[in-house]
């Protein structure tokens, strides 16, 4: 089912959206057919591009607006939410 999901998530790991965390988002984006976008303020980037994610520059506490659109957008969004909650697997 094609649809668009948006959600605002907070980056809560200490290191912020650094390379390793960004890589995990990219991995996820690649797994699904749906397109993934992350927006901070007025800058929106492709969730499938590690470089774009890095240039979004999100330290801990940043709120990002996530948009997933296309087939399985819902599943993608759910998994992404878990990834954020899980703080990208970063140890405390």
């Amino acid at each position, binding site marked *: 089912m094609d649809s668009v999901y948006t959600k605002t998530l907070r980056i809560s790991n200490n*290191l*912020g959206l*650094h*390379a*390793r965390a960004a*890589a995990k988002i*990219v991995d996820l984006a690649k797994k699904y057919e749906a397109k993934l976008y992350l927006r901070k303020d007025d800058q929106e980037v*492709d969730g*499938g*591009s*590690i*470089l*774009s994610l*890095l*240039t979004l*520059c999100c*330290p801990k506490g940043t709120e990002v607006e996530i948009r997933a659109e296309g087939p399985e957008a819902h599943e993608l969004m759910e998994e992404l939410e878990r990834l954020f909650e899980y703080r990208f697997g970063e140890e405390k």
Partner: protein
Amino acid sequence: MKSGEGSAPRILKGIPVSSGVVIGKAHVVETSQLKIVYQYLLDEKHVEMEVERFMDALHTTGEQLKKLKDSMPEPIKSHGFIIDTHLMILQDSMLREGTVEKIRKEQINAEWALKKSLREIRRLFEEIDDPYIRGRIDDVEDVADRIMRNLAGQEAPPLGDITQRVIVVAHKLSPADTSEMDVTKVMGFITDMGGRTSHTAIMAQALKIPAVVGLETATQFVEDGDLLIVDGTAGEVVINPDDSDIIRFQERQVLYQEKESLIAKSSQAPAITKDGYRITVRANIEFLEEVGTVKEYGGEGIGLYRTEFLYLKSRGLPSEEELFLDYKEAVEQVAPDPVAIRTLDLGGEKLTSVPGSLNEANPALGLRGIRLCLKERDMFRTQLRAILRASAFGKVRIIFPMISGVQELMDAKAFLKSIMGELDEEGLGYDPYLEVGIMIEVPSAVTMAEVLAEHVDFFSIGTNDLIQYALAIDRVNEHVAYMYQPFHPAILRMIRTVVEAGDQCGGRVSLCGEMASDPLCTGLLLGLGITELSINARTIPVIKELIRSISIEEARKDLHEVMKLPTARQVREYLLERMNPIIEKLGINESFLNTTQVPMG
């Protein structure tokens, strides 16, 4: 370097070395090697082949990275993440699609497109505050390097397809760099390094395109594809100009052209001082291509033909025939005026083709100039034969460089004579009366000038090297460059000694080097008794005009005063005061006035 602290300057100031104004796209040349060249792809077919070549290189890079990760030993396996990041960067759309899009849209080669993508990414990263993330650019560069290497391993489209004209931006350009470059596509040059006699300056003047050197930070602030205005007359470069800049510089250009055409009108007339002395003004040239400009600018022949270029350009040493044709062409073009050919003046380190090239700790004091030629006799023979044979077609003079004493001169002359004998036997024509002179650029030659004068027809004072050797400073060494002082009283005394020695033997003394084309020096040199100047062709009209407004009698009086002054700074100040009214009256712009500055400290 591009730390993002403060914004990049919009206008850079440097040393103007070739006049004119040009507006165009920047082509940044990395370091001194031209590994990444710009190529314009002619058609759809080439474009698609190039995209394929790029994708192949990505694929190869990916395979290499995976292999690298697999071969990591257990203890550092956890660092494999770095390689995962690299693989991800490799797949990244900014790099991958961004580059492919550039190849297609701009019809450029993969290397250039990748380089542009990399610059875009770098720009984005520079704006990141977080130092850790900003540092990830290093990973991107690593990946790009790897791709570049793989691209290099694959066949690139043929060179020479460059169809867009660019302004070359480089840290420094060597003759080897420019010999690989299609210079006819270059609209202008700007470099970080270099001075008035740098290779870039000479090249630009020969091509009659604007150039500014010594900008120090050009490669730091100019990005590929930036729009640039290069004002080679004022020494200014504007990065990404706005409309009002463009209008302002176009107005300047019109002004420059008016002034130049005014001066050019009188350039063909001889340079006679106010009190009736005739001064000969000839041209220094380095490339055959420059010969055409000699007459155009009113040069009375060539006072210094530097012959190094053909030795640096070709693979291996040039053949006698190649040299002969080059010299003959120059001789025929300026006939009946003379061409003074300086024999090879290179350090051994520049000639990889010379067997047993040395690794010298101090090349400036090493095997170079006439010393190298007298050691490498076969190479010297080839050049002397070519020069002698060319002398059958016009008026040729020979100048031996770096002569430090009488013995060297005698050896060189004896060798020259033996070669004349060879040509006689072979029945080849040459001018048996051709004049032989030497460069005066080693201080010992100044001291010995009166003895040397008995053995030569003329002296040519090479002030650039003489100043360096006499004051023991390397002008390229930034720590002592401020000591490079043409107005140093010692230098003035040396020139006087040489002129007096020449006068005694009836030999002529000419002066080449930057001093000869510095308007501040003109009166001084005439006062010293110099009757022949050899300068860059484009400065001839101005210097001739200047000579016409000077009287030798006054110049001698000035010299008398100058010789009493103990420091270079005082000499310069005196000359500024004396010459400025004349210079201003002639409307000589500042591009000619930056030549021989003395620091005010």
